[in-house]
Structure formats: structure tokens, C-alpha cells
């Protein structure tokens, strides 16, 4: 996949009048929000495991569910952070040719 998005996007982004720092801060805020959400779900599952252990209430069932659910949220969080990092800090062209293509 190498044709998606706007070819003029790069130059237009450069020329944007918006405060880039404000946008970056808002982006970081959204990322932080998602991180808190995923961490919250993992913490919730952790609490349910703790309760089942403390109350001797079928600890094995809680562990069984957590073994599936927690990695899912960790993978999702990793993907979101990876995408965020890769896109926000990977927008510069890798070569002069690519830069010319993007600006065309």
C-alpha cells in the first residue's frame, strides 16, 4: 500500500496555520486517555483476581479469563502506541525522491 492519503498532505501540513504544538499536545492527551482506559481495564481484571483469591472464590476461573483478556488489551495498547509513534514521528520522507513525490 503506497498510494493512500494525500500526496499534497506533507506540504500542506508544513504550511498549516495551526499551532503544531497544540495539536501534538491534544494528540498526546488522546493517547494518554486510551492508555488510562486500557490500564484501567487491566487493573479492574487484576482487582477481580485479587478478590477471588482473598475470598477463596474460584481463583482458577479468574486466572483463566485474565490469561486471555489481559494480553488482548496489552496488544491493543501496544498497537495504538506503535501507530501513534510511527505516524507522528515518521512523517518525514526517507529520501529526496520521496519528498519530491509527496510535494508533487
Amino acid at each position, binding site marked *: 500500500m503506497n498510494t493512500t492519503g494525500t500526496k499534497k498532505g506533507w506540504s500542506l*501540513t508544513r504550511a498549516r496555520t495551526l499551532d503544531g504544538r497544540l495539536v501534538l499536545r491534544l494528540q498526546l492527551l488522546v493517547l494518554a486517555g486510551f492508555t488510562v482506559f486500557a490500564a484501567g481495564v487491566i487493573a479492574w481484571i487484576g482487582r477481580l483476581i485479587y478478590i477471588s483469591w482473598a475470598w477463596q472464590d474460584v481463583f482458577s476461573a479468574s486466572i483463566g479469563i485474565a490469561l486471555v483478556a489481559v494480553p488482548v488489551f496489552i496488544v491493543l495498547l501496544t498497537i495504538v502506541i506503535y501507530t501513534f509513534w510511527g505516524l507522528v514521528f515518521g512523517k518525514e520522507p526517507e529520501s529526496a525522491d520521496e519528498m519530491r513525490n509527496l510535494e508533487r
Partner: protein
Amino acid sequence: MDKPRWAAQEDAILLQPVLVTGKGFYVTVGALGVLVLVGVASYVIQFNNGLGVTGLNYPVSWGFYIVNFVFFIGISHAGTLISAILRLSQAEWRRPITRVAEVITVMVLGIGGMNIIIDLGRPDRISSIFLYGRYQSPLLWDATSITAYLTASTVYLYIPMIPDIAILRDAVDGGWRKTFYSVFALGWTGSKRQHRVLNRAITILAVLVVPIAVSVHTVVSFVFSMTVQPMWHSTIFGPYFVVGAIFSGIAALLVIMAILRRIFHLEDYLQPIHFNYLGLLMLVMVLLWSYFTFAEYLTTYYGNEPAEMRVFMTKFDGQYSFGFWAMVFFNVVIPLPILAINRTRTITGTVVAAVSIMIGMWLERYIIIAPTLANPRLHQYATGSYVPSLVEIGIMVGCFSLFALFYVLFSKIFPIVSISEVREGRKETLAIVEERVRRYTPGLGRLTT
């Protein structure tokens, strides 16, 4: 007046609903808003007076809300699952329909989950799930898997949409929308590095969401099958529910595609061939669903166990027979011939079949839930019946309207057909398909190594 810059772009028709607001938008939002208010007012009545205003009683403690919950979670399979399967199998015809489908998932999962809270007589006690939930309860498995699916589906909807958000960022002139799109475009410029990152993330997500989606409806079925109630305690309920979910999901997708095609004039994007392919997929699901239903009912009948037979007979020949036979009529009798015959598998034909299936699958959920609760295993203590009240009907109308309202609002903020995927397909599809055919056809040879 000069045309705006974006209007000269390729695929400008896909940007038009986002960037131009017509009278129709306000009328639709207003009408749907009124219906949502009907639902809200009904819920306020229930909240103030308790579940006594519903048709729920002892022993029928689950009614329309749980039917709607299962139905909405079912049609959520229209989106992320189908989109992920088509993406992973490199079905090139998927491009204009993936987003239409993915949006359905995110919307209906939220509304489905909301029905559980509506079903609680004391919604404030939802906090007990967070504080003292017990993982040996299938209800909590549901809460966990639906949260995982909703999160994964939202991310899966958002990440492929980033290039389109960048298009919108560059198309709008300023104001809050520019800021909004700039934030969510994540600095997309279309560089090779960004493409690599995006493709990798989409592929991992597509692989991840398939088992999550299957698990969701399996777990929904466990809410019933983990009990020993007659006609619920079945080992095939997991796959039966998954098949039913995909079945109703494809139907929902077809109906929404037809509506969008008509309203936004997307005839060039949503072509008869898309309806034909999805129609064929739905035909397979009609047969699979019929097979599962037959297996389920035959096993019960042949076993002839008294508690099971009471429920069986109430469906076949008793209080719920109208609903049961209507379900068979809408799920099999109407769609099967329409979808099986080439000549009738047109846009109109598939939409008629899809509407019929949506009605039939809603009835199926009702027919699974109400008759068993009305005739429980310990019937000597209580039997009953269920007739929904106006409050429940009002809330149901509100839920369906809320789904439509969310969909309309989404299409006002983001392009409902993926512009970037369509452009990519236009440029690369022929070469990709040719290369693929060369790869598996003996004697053709490969273009690239």
C-alpha cells in the same frame, strides 16, 4: 460562486456528505432525535417506577432488553469480523464496504451493552460489577469480551481511517474542524514509513479481531447454555450463535449499504456486484443457520425429555408458535429462493432478503429467550408468559433510532466509504490480482520475484 478546492478532487462525492450540510441532514437528525427522546422518556418512566412498568415478571425475568442485547451484539459481527476476514483474504471487492461495516460494529456494541444496563432495575448497582464482580459468572465473561471487542473494533475502525482524516484535514479551511482532523490525522503525510507502520498495525489488528469477534458471540451464548434450563443447555449454542450473528450482521450491512447508496449517490462505489457477493455469503449463512436450527430442534425432539419438550411444544404448537413459524418464514422461506436464484439476487432482491432476515433473527432471539423462561426446568414452582409493555417498546424504538442517529452523525464527520482504500485499489488492484493469479496458475509465470 467558485467551487471549493476539495470539489475538484477525485472521489469528491465521498467528501460531500462531510463538507456540505443539506436540509436533509437536519430533518433526519431531528426525526431520529425525536424517536431517541421517546426512548429516553420511556426509560425515565422505568427508572422512576422500577421494572414493574415492563412486562417482565416471575419467572420471565428477561424480555425485550435481553433480546435486543443479543440482537445488537449479533449484528456487530457485520463489521469488524467481515471486514477483517475480507482484508486478510485479500478480497479486492471489499474496499468500498469495509468502513460501512466497521462503523456498524462500534455503534451496535455500545447500544447492545446499554441494553444490559437498561435491564437492571437498579442501574446504580452496575458499580458492583467493577468492585465485586465474580469471574465464574458468564455475565462477566460477556462484559470482558464485549469491552475487548468494542475497544479492538474502535481501534480497527480508526487506524485505517487515518489517511482519510488527513484528506479532510487538508480539505477544510480552518476552525475547530481543522484542529479536530489535524489531531486525529496523526501528522499523516503519506510517507513510506507511515504506510509501513499503518499496514503493519492494520494486519495485526485484523488477525486479532477475528478470534475476539468469535469469542464475543460464543460468550453471549454461554449466558444461556451454562444454565441447565430446557433448550438453553446445549453444546452447539456457541457456534449456533456465531453463525446467527454473522447471518444477521451481513443482513444489516446490506440494508445500510442500500440506504447509503441511495442517499449519498454512491452507485459507482457500491455496485450490484457487492450486493451479489454479499448475497451469496448470506445464502451460505441461510443454509448454515437452517442446519444448526434443525440439529438443535431435532436433538431436543428425539431426546423427548419432559422439561425440554414443554419448551419445544410451546414453540411449535403453543403460545410462541406464531413467533417460531414467523422466524422460519423470515429466515428461510423468504430469503432462500431470492438469494439462490441468480435473477433475483439483485440489489432489490438482496435488500428484501436482508430486511426479512433482520426481522427473522430478531424473532429468533425472542424465541430462544422467552419460551424457556416461561417454562423453566423447575416448572412446578412457576410458569408464566411475557407480553412487552409500551415502555419496553418505547425503549426499543429509542435504541434502534439511536443507532441510526449515530450512523448519520458519523457520516457527517468522516467519509463513510474509505477514500484511501478505493484510491489504492484503483491504482494497484489489477496488478495485485494479476500477480496473484500468476502465482497459483501453472504455466503463467510470475512478473516479480
